[in-house]
């Protein structure tokens, strides 16, 4: 993206990161429940420079029928990036990366969604990445949880998500784009704070067993921060601004 120094200082002597944050400080996060007219539920998140819109439809009929399950509902998730969301224009065809992230997010949401209440139906979660930055899958997962709740889908807990990582030999919260490029490890974490369950976990990088432990714990702490913002977004819509619906 031009003009950036190659001698980027990832962590200075005062423990301040390249974007001015402390090691345990997430980027700016803004979550909004609702927003779309047609979708049954929706949410919008800005997480650092990520801008992600999520729409939920369902429970609704499944076509073709043989894809449905007589015992339970099914969850379908599509994570999709707009052509203009990244530095170099993205080819509109779904990439293998998007297909994998769709699956990982689906499996992160499944433990939270009470699909058994809606046999034979589907709940569709459509995630649209309008602008991508480091940690977009975490931002997407966090917004998807809010959109599902906004659609009135019964849930055991919200799934909150945030990454931790290793930068300049230090475990830090919420790795940004520059840190991811130049850093040593990136670990996205998805977590249900009430049920104390990790539902998304990936890692690229190199961590010793001690660092690994610290990284998981740091990620979970980030999730707890996000969780409060998710609850606030839903409260804002359903209790503060009731007339707005």
């Amino acid at each position: 993206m031009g003009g950036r120094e190659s001698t980027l200082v990832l962590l200075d002597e005062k423990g301040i990161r390249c974007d001015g944050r402390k090691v345990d400080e997430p980027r700016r996060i803004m979550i909004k429940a609702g927003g779309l007219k047609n979708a049954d539920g929706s949410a919008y998140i800005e997480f650092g420079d990520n801008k992600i819109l999520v729409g939920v439809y369902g429970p609704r009929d499944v076509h073709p029928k043989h894809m449905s399950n007589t015992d339970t509902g099914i969850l379908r998730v599509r994570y999709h990036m707009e052509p203009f969301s990244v530095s170099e224009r993205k080819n509109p065809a779904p990439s293998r990366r998007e297909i994998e992230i769709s699956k990982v997010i689906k499996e992160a949401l499944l433990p939270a969604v009470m699909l058994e209440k809606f046999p034979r139906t589907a709940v569709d979660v459509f995630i649209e990445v309008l602008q991508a930055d480091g940690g977009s899958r975490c931002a997407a997962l966090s917004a998807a949880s809010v959109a599902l709740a906004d659609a009135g889908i019964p849930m055991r807990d919200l799934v909150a998500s945030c990454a931790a990582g290793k930068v300049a030999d230090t475990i830090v919260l919420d790795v940004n784009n520059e840190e991811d490029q130049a850093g040593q490890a990136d670990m996205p974490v998805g977590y249900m704070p009430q049920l104390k369950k990790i539902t998304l976990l990936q890692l690229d990088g190199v961590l010793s067993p001690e660092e690994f432990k610290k990284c998981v714990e740091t990620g979970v702490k980030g999730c707890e921060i996000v969780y409060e913002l998710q609850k606030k977004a839903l409260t804002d819509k359903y209790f503060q601004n009731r007339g707005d619906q």
Partner: protein
Amino acid sequence: MTTTVIDDLRRSQILELLDQGKRIDGRALDEPRKLTVEVDAIPKANGSARVRLGDTEVICGVKIQPDRPFPDMGDKGIFICTAELLPLSHPSVETGPPNPDVIELARVVDRGIRESHMVDVSQLVIEKNKSVVGVFADIVVVDYDGNLFDACSYAATAALLTSKMPKWEMKDDVPTLVEGIELDLPTTTIPVSITMAKIGNHIVVDPNSDEWDSMDSRITITTDPDGNIVAMQKGGNDGFTIDEIIKCGDLSIKVGAQIRENLKQASKGS
């Protein structure tokens, strides 16, 4: 694929109101819905706009990057406009390759802008026959309430009007970014598309989704600031009389002028 009783009832109600000179949402027949244009909605893109036309909402992001020229077009840059209905925009939208409706949408929006010569592609050459600048205006539909032709066209136009273009120079036969220089994308005019639906014997401007589902036929006409007609597309399952077509031409110039002011205002000072 079957017309439902509800569809029939809605059409009857819309027709009844039109016979009294009224529309289902209270607008005059030649009145477009409220247009809101937020430019620079996607800061990392070279240009962008989020447009609401009534409850239809679309986002256009423009990416500008070096590309190879088309054969025999070595002295011209590339302009391409695409459109996609995101599945969150309406329960009936399916993922997968674009259907003919969406292909027509993208091509009509592209043609309206292209035929107006809005983007001055002659200024988008890095090295003749070797490397040119490509301008990609990708539009996504986020919420659907009818008349995507105009909403998408306005979003693309506003995004292009506010696009900033980096500079490249050839270095070792490779187009290389020149740091610190950003110019406005060279544009020459502001085309405006106006879509009109024929319902019974009535012509209405900017049909919403209820009107869209009830119409007999439609026409999209794009005009330029000099009052010329630069592109047109008839659609729908019925026809128009010659007089109706002439009337639509006049309407598109009149209503187009209002929309053009709106787009100009929104793009100022970005």
